[in-house]
């Protein structure tokens, strides 16, 4: 009896131990009989299902089935949210009846954390910003796809590498030292960093580097977030450069206008003084030198005005390939044989522009190229073609609106331009040439003229390899251009008529004779306006056209023209003037002068004007 009582006590104690174990379990435990009814539920099951144990026991739960060891089930909570559990099922026997013991481990929080982690991972994977994580030695542990886009290195390549491989050799180590100091101090470092891509190109990023703490509160790694700002930085540099050029242009233009007035006075009064001096005397020659020097100064002023885009512009549709061809031919005959010349000039649709200015652009670029190869020779290549440009390219180059552009490329294989001064080549008075070999205005004039035509100019150069200048000019509006280009004639059209040319400067007179005779005309040249007038008076019908300089001793060009027109009113007269000595149009018309031209005379323009006048056009240029 005593034994039985002891066995019963031990059994109760054993039952109590197992009940305690089951009751204290963090998992919900339920026992289901062969009909699917819950016959036992522990305390955790009560809270897990949100159902009182007395009600839960007796509920028709169903037969629990698991595929492998566990299966995931979802349980609605009284809060309206869904809970989740990992269900494990054991089938056993109780009182010769099969029973199922299901233990349910709450995975609601783990699933929420996993979902949150997945969202975070997806966000980093899909972020536009480059993200990489390094250990505290700077070795890359992880990089996202944007990192590949910015640096060109695949994530696999980057993993395990020291992040310093992205740093360009010329970047200050100080920046990186400061960055790590901040991170080690538990702070975030922000700033711009430059880097080198896998292909050797450069990139620029706005970066932030932050410490990452582990569970023990130690800084275990650093997260680097980089936004590629290469384009923004390029645009910013371009804007700064454009603003600088604009400011220089405004300043130079203002000075040039005032200086022009001063030069006009110097030239005017010198010429007045010269008139009262005996020709060929020492003083006469001295004044002649003053005027000559002042004229050179005026040419410089003209170039400054062209740079600052304040000179008067007359835009017409121009077939630019004709000008490019003309410059090419001119250079081929004048450059030394050590410079080999290549050309690829295509006939393009017209651009709207000023022929003289565009001629100067081509000429300046080619002269520069030739000078870069003056010592050792080389190759000068001239290419001209129509190019379509994307919207992005047009914006980047700050070009005017157009469907298409012509592109002029002038390349040399000369000494190249060092990267340190490449940004400055379009600034006025900036030159790398020896003293006396360049004014430093050539490229600034090119820049000014091209900008004035709604175009853009860029330069690429490698030291000891050569330089390439690319000029883009927008094509003229087609409809407008078509109606006007018909008027545009071949610039070097000649004839066999008789021309009387008057200029007191013998070298200029001789140059004009050569130029006009080259076009087939019969030319008589005079350096004395009175002698010219006498010749004309003797046989006015033996002259078909008169070209006269404005500023001449004894008798000025306008007076000479008036005298000649009083003898023969239909004689076409072209009056040549300097930049600051233009006479106004009503006055010229009143005198009967048909055209005036700005010196120095450009063969193309002069040839065109002569032909128009001889062909009877009532043309006033």
């Amino acid at each position, binding site marked *: 009896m005593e034994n039985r009582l002891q066995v019963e006590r031990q059994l109760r104690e054993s039952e109590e131990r197992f009940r305690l174990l089951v009751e204290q379990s963090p998992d919900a435990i339920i026992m289901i009989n062969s009909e699917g009814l819950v016959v036992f539920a522990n305390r955790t099951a009560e809270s897990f299902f949100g159902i009182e144990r007395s009600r839960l026991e007796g*509920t028709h739960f169903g037969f629990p*089935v698991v595929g492998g060891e566990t299966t995931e089930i*979802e349980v609605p909570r009284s809060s309206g949210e869904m809970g989740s559990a990992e269900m494990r099922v054991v089938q056993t026997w109780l009182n010769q009846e099969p029973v199922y013991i299901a233990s349910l481990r709450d995975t609601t929080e783990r699933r929420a954390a996993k979902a949150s982690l997945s969202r975070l991972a997806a966000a980093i994977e899909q972020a536009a910003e480059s993200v990489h994580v390094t250990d505290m030695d700077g070795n890359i542990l992880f990089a996202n796809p944007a990192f590949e886009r910015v640096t060109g290195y695949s994530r696999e390549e980057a993993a395990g590498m020291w992040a310093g491989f992205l740093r360009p050799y010329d970047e200050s180590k100080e920046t990186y030292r400061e960055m790590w100091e901040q991170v080690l101090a538990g702070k975030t470092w922000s700033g711009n960093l430059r880097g080198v891509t896998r292909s050797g190109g450069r990139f620029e990023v706005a970066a932030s580097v932050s410490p990452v703490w582990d569970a023990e509160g130690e800084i275990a790694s650093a997260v680097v977030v980089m936004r590629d700002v290469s384009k923004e930085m390029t645009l910013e540099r371009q804007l700064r450069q454009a603003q600088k050029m604009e400011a220089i242009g405004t300043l130079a233009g203002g000075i040039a206008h005032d200086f022009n007035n001063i030069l006009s006075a110097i030239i005017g009064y010198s010429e007045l003084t010269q008139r009262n001096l005996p020709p060929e005397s020492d003083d006469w020659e001295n004044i002649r030198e003053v005027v000559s020097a002042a004229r050179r100064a005026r040419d410089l002023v003209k170039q400054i005005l062209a740079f600052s885009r304040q000179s008067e512009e007359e835009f017409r549709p121009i077939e630019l390939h004709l000008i490019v061809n003309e410059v090419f031919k001119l250079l081929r005959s004048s450059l030394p044989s050590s410079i080999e010349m290549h050309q690829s000039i295509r006939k393009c649709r017209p651009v709207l522009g000023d022929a003289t200015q565009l001629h100067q652009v081509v000429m300046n670029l080619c002269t520069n190229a030739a000078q870069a190869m003056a010592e050792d020779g080389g190759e000068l290549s001239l290419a001209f073609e129509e190019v379509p440009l994307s919207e992005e390219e047009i914006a980047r180059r700050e070009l005017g609106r157009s469907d298409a552009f012509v592109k002029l490329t002038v390349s040399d294989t000369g000494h190249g331009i060092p990267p340190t001064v490449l940004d400055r080549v379009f600034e006025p008075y900036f030159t790398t040439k020896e003293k006396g070999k360049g004014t430093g205005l050539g490229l600034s004039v090119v820049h000014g003229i091209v900008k004035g035509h709604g175009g853009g100019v860029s330069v690429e150069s490698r030291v000891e390899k050569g330089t390439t200048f690319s000029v883009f000019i927008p094509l003229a509006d087609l409809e407008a251009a078509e109606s006007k280009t018909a008027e545009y004639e071949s610039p070097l059209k000649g004839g066999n008529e008789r021309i009387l040319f008057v200029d007191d400067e013998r070298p200029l007179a001789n140059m004009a004779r050569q130029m006009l005779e080259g076009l087939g005309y019969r030319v008589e040249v005079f350096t004395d306006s009175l002698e010219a007038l006498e010749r004309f008076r003797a046989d006015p019908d033996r002259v078909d056209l008169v070209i006269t300089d404005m500023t001449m001793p004894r008798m000025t060009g306008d007076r000479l023209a008036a005298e000649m027109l009083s003898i023969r009113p239909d004689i076409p007269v072209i009056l040549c003037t300097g930049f600051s000595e233009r006479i106004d149009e009503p006055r010229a018309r009143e005198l009967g002068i048909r055209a005036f031209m700005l010196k120095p005379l450009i063969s193309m323009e002069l040839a065109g004007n002569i032909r128009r006048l001889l062909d009877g056009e009532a043309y006033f240029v």
Partner: protein
Amino acid sequence: MAESGSKRKPHILRLYVSGRGPRARKAVADAEAILASGLMDSYALEVVDLLNNAASAQRDGVIATPTLLKTGPGSPRKIIGDLKDVPKILSALGLQ
């Protein structure tokens, strides 16, 4: 969840799921595979979203998902958990 039952079939196999997530979609696919086994030609599948049909779930005594319910003929059977093992499920439903 749309019902995919057919009026011509006299018996219903009702599947309770929660929402339209990947778990719910997998349970539906498993249930369709059970119906396609050839032993349940007279059954149509009815899918019920427990989140939108609390009253129906209470009526059927469903407290977790996925739960598959065979209401007839014969004694009703309810299965809860993984439905991918077709022979095991058919056996639990009393059809094998």
